[in-house]
Structures are given as structure tokens and as C-alpha cells.
């Protein structure tokens, strides 16, 4: 196991592995997205209260959970990079940031569009909405901090500290609807013992969430390969790999 981790932290091995793994993540993700979208838009019955507007959850919830998951991956990778001084871990963290930022934007905008017919407002300074907006600022801050350094190693260290400190916002986003009175509805699927969502509505959501996770893996492979090439510009293995 440790040997595999050690091997994976080698840039040429990671570059090659990411290229090989990508199609195995991308195409199942597309397939599952089609299945999930048909399930959510056509097969799932309408909600008795929110009617057909509830179908927004099939893109809003996977985007939101991905925005939190990507930040966690980014912070863990940054932590691994700082503690074990693994350069590839910093590359993973750097590759995560733009993807996470886009999904946070998608979460905020789809949430806003969902809020208008349900709450009568596009935006409210509610704990869930505000903490998700802070998540976007953390992603943007992380990318701006990286861009402000010419030296990659200094950029890695400084941005890693921001990523690690900022991870405290992840449980705040997740549990904001439990800890405070929120306009946003409570968790529906995290209560594994008794999910408060009917089975015919639940399965397309789970399919979509799995599809988004696989999709993230595929896009991360491309971003990571680009990041590895940027960092390894003078490495001898490039001539063999790109020949």
C-alpha cells in the first residue's frame, strides 16, 4: 500500500496513470448523468409541495456536495503536501481549486433560481447560502494567492495554509441547516436510517451524485496532468513521454 502511494507520488507515474484512468471515469460519468437526468426529469413523480420545481435538486444537490467534497480533497492534498513535502499533493490541490470554484458557482446560481419560486426571493443572507458564498471566496482566494507568487514552492506553502484553515467552513456549510434556523431545507439523504425522500425520487439523485464524483475525477486527471507538466518543465522523463 505504502509502496503504491510512494510510486503514485512520482510525477511521471502519476502523469501516465491519470491519462489511463481518465476515460474510465469520464464515460461512465456521462452515462450515469444521462440515466440520472432521465430519472429526475421524467421518471420521478412530482413533489406534493414543490411540484415540478423540486427537479432542480438533481443538479443543485450534486453540485453542492461536489463543491464541498472538492474543497475537502484540496485541503487534504494541501495538508499531505505540507506534512510529507510531496510536490504531487500540492499539484492535486492546485488542480482541484478551479473545478471546485465552478461547482460552487453552479450551486449558488441554481440555488438562487430554485429559491425564487420556492422562497419568493433570489437571495437571503441565510447561514447555508452565506457559508456557501464564503466557500466560493475561499476557492477564489486560494487561486489568487497561488497566482501572486512566481515561485511554485512558496505558492504551494502559502496556499496550503489557506486551504487547511478554510476547511473549517466545510462542516459549517454542511450543518448550517441543523445548527441554525435556516430558510434552506434540512438534510434529506444524510439520515441513512430514514431518508426523508421517497425511493423513486432518491435513486436518480444518488445516480447523479455518483456521476458528478466520477466526472470530477476525470476533469481532475486532465487538470493534474497539465499541472504536472507545468511543474516538471525541465524533467528528463518528459522527452520520453511526449516523444
Amino acid at each position, binding site marked *: 500500500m505504502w509502496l503504491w502511494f510512494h510510486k503514485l507520488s512520482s510525477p511521471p507515474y502519476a502523469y501516465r496513470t491519470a491519462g489511463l484512468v481518465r476515460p474510465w471515469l469520464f464515460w461512465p460519468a456521462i452515462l450515469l448523468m444521462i440515466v440520472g437526468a432521465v430519472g429526475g426529469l421524467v421518471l420521478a413523480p412530482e413533489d406534493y409541495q414543490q411540484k*415540478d420545481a423540486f427537479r432542480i435538486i438533481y443538479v*443543485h444537490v450534486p453540485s453542492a456536495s461536489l463543491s464541498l467534497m472538492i474543497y475537502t480533497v484540496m485541503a487534504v492534498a494541501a495538508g499531505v503536501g505540507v506534512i510529507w513535502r510531496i510536490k504531487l499533493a500540492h499539484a492535486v490541490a492546485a488542480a482541484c481549486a478551479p473545478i471546485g470554484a465552478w461547482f460552487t458557482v*453552479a450551486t449558488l*446560481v441554481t440555488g438562487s*433560481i430554485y429559491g425564487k*419560486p420556492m422562497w419568493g426571493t433570489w437571495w437571503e443572507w441565510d447561514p447555508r447560502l452565506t457559508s456557501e458564498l464564503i466557500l466560493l471566496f475561499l476557492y477564489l482566494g486560494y487561486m489568487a494567492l497561488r497566482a501572486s507568487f512566481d515561485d511554485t514552492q512558496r505558492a504551494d506553502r502559502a496556499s496550503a495554509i489557506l486551504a487547511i484553515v478554510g476547511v473549517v467552513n466545510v462542516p459549517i456549510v454542511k450543518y448550517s441547516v441543523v445548527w441554525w434556523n435556516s430558510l434552506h431545507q434540512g438534510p434529506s439523504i444524510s439520515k441513512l436510517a430514514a431518508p426523508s425522500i421517497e425511493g423513486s425520487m432518491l435513486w436518480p439523485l444518488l445516480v447523479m451524485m455518483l456521476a458528478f464524483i466520477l466526472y470530477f475525477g476525470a476533469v481532475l486527471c486532465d487538470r493534474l496532468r497539465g499541472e504536472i507538466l507545468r511543474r516538471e*518543465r525541465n524533467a528528463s522523463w518528459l522527452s520520453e513521454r511526449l516523444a
Partner: protein
Amino acid sequence: MNLKDVLDMGDYGVYVWSCYGLVLAVLVLNVWLGRRALAEQVLSAKRRLKIAESINSESSSPS
């Protein structure tokens, strides 16, 4: 459920379809941005290798 019902979404069509359109755009954009970033790095790495190769061949060839 017929096609009109699917498009209308019980008068919520504008909200539902704009969300799906936006997320689809983010999904496509992320793939494109990732591929473009990788292609740019591959191109610049190949360019550097070519320059290094030409310098090496110049220095090794007898003057």
C-alpha cells in the same frame, strides 16, 4: 408525461431548464478548460524539448 409536460414542468419550466442548462454549461466548460490547459502545457513542453534538442545538436556538431 408527454413532451409538453416535460418542457412546461408545471409552469416551473423556466426555473428547471435554466438550472439544467447552467449546470450543463459548467460541465462542458470544465472539460474544455481542463483539456485546453493540458494541451497548452503539452505544446509548451514540446517546444522546450525541441529548442533543447537543437541546442544539443548544435553544440555536438563539429564547427
